[in-house]
């Protein structure tokens, strides 16, 4: 599926792209607000500065995806694979990242205000300058606390619930 096809589908009102295989698709600056991309394969996809508000990425494969400056407010990223993804300057305000896989992800200057990061794996992630106010890391079961091992928290703001 080419980006044009995808955007035409979206423009015609289609929202459900569950399980689609869209590896490497270039949707930079695209507006696909509210789409359902559950379980989709979006490895290496390009979403630079795209509008992804409230998109459902549950269990999607976003490994090495380019999400710099993407607007992911209130997006559902539970259990999504975001390993090595580029989320530089992305806005993830109120996003649901429970159990998301974020090892080595770049979250520099990302907006994680009120994001739910319970049980997320952030080992080796770059959180320089990221805003984490009100973000939730707490897990009732101690065993599943968010993994921040090796994460770079320079200039990252605290006041989160950890």
């Amino acid at each position, binding site marked *: 599926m080419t980006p044009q096809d995808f955007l035409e589908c979206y423009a015609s009102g289609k929202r459900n792209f569950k399980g689609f295989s869209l590896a490497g698709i270039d949707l930079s*600056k695209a507006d696909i607000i509210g789409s359902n991309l559950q379980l989709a394969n979006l490895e290496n996809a390009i979403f630079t*500065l795209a509008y992804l508000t409230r998109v459902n990425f549950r269990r999607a494969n976003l490994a090495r995806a380019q999400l*710099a*400056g993407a*607007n992911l407010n209130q997006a559902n990223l539970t259990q999504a694979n975001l390993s090595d993804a580029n989320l*530089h*300057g*992305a*806005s993830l*305000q109120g996003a649901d990242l429970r159990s998301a896989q974020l090892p080595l992800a*770049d979250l*520099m*200057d*990302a*907006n994680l*205000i009120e994001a739910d990061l319970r049980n997320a794996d952030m080992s080796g992630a770059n959180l*320089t*300058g990221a*805003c984490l*106010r009100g973000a939730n890391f707490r897990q009732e079961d101690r065993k599943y606390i968010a993994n921040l091992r090796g994460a770079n928290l320079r*200039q990252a*703001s605290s006041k989160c619930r950890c």
Partner: protein
Amino acid sequence: MLIQRDLELIAEQCECFGGKVLKSTGDGLLMSFYSAVQAVLCSQEVQKQLAKLAESSAAGESLQHRIGVHLGDVLFRHQDVLGNGVNIAARLQAKSAPGGVCISQTVYDVVKARIDINATFLGPLKLKNIQEPVAAFQIPPFGQSATMVVPQLAGQPVGTDLSPLAIAAATLEQAPQIRRIKKLIFGTYQGVWENDPKVLMQFDLLPLLKQLYQRHRTLISLEKALQTMAARLNHKSAYLAVADTILQALEPVYTEAEDSASDGEVASRSSLRDRYNEIAETLAQQTDRLRIKKLLYAVIHTAWENDQAVLALHTLADLVTDVHQIAPSEADLSYHLERIIKRLNRHNHYAQLALIISEAFHPLYGSPAEAAPMVTELSAEPLADGHTMMFGSDKPVIDEGLTSLTGWQSSVLSDGQTSVHSSQLAIANVCPIEGPQDAKIHDRANLYALRLEIMRYTNPLRAKILLLSTVRSPFTATPQDWLTLKSKSLDDLIKTTFQYCQTFSDLESKLTIMSHCVGNVGENIQAAGAILQAMKPFYP
């Protein structure tokens, strides 16, 4: 063919300045440049070359050309170039004087700090097929002064006032160095060096000359004052020559006045002394008379004095007398008070005191004939909004309350700007030792709340792109640009921006311009708005 010869010359110059000829319109060329500065420099050079060519050619063997310069987005499509930016440039060209260059405000704002352009503000122009009016400036043809091109914009209607001073002013207006002439006259008269053309534009030459003449009653005294000022500047020799030009123009004024010196002057001087005493008494009744004294002292000495012993040496009446010498008109008084107050950390409090002072001084200015016998029509220069920008380049003073002795004018010395580097004029940062400062200005050491605010209201990456473009060069999304963006955190960029934009209005204009220079204008304007709102409380 003449046109062919000229277009070839223009294209050649375009290449020299790193520009590209996009298309020919038959009798014109459309060119693009990577930098607005290069575009303006190129257009000036082109007009200069064409003027020289015309000089050496026989009559009727030369053409005059108009040039319009604008900064905006263009779209390349099928060998053609489209976009509003192109249309505006074309329309501006039509508004230019033959042999001159018409530049939009956007271009002017971008280049003014880098090149010394002698441009006249044309106001917002209604351009054909362009919805919004476009503010523009006219650069006069090579070898002409700005006022010759647009006489209707000059302050004084020609031919109504033929006093010797008016003739001198008219002569000076025609001089090629008018900008420097005005700067030197303003500087000598106000005792403060001013480079901002917006501020200078608010003062007409004739009233300035009248006041200068009033202060220096002999040519020798004026000569000394001008030369003392010029000697302090970094472009000393250039300004000494400018001083000569001014003296030459004013010489007839002094010779004529010698014959008609009146005795009435002395009489009014003594009645003035009574008035000074009255004002001093009014001010002495104020509870805050010590601070009033400090403020008056600062107007006279351009330095802040906290030492009570020093202040005690001056009576209020003396201070009032001296201030009136420095500020013979109400506009001058406001100018000087504002200049001082802007530098104080207890800004609001002193603004109140300045009001009290202005009120007390008001009777002095009420009847200009008595207060200043030689001046027939005292100017009341409009103190418009532009005045608040007077010290645009100054560093804000947020010390702990210690009087610091750094430059009064921290204006940039590079870029050919003239600034004073003597210690006598450019002295202290005014910073009274009086309790904790009214801490309304947010602390720049901790930018956490600021970042939070920016992120809440705009996309962090977009904010970063806009800030990086502002402090560096417009972001073009090359891999190199992305690497640079990644090497700087939002925190770093905000700090650099604070250093780069010394005042809030500076920040505002730079961000607004940059919003139009990098892709996706609408989003950028939104981001710029969020950044401005968040950063505003951090500026004094």
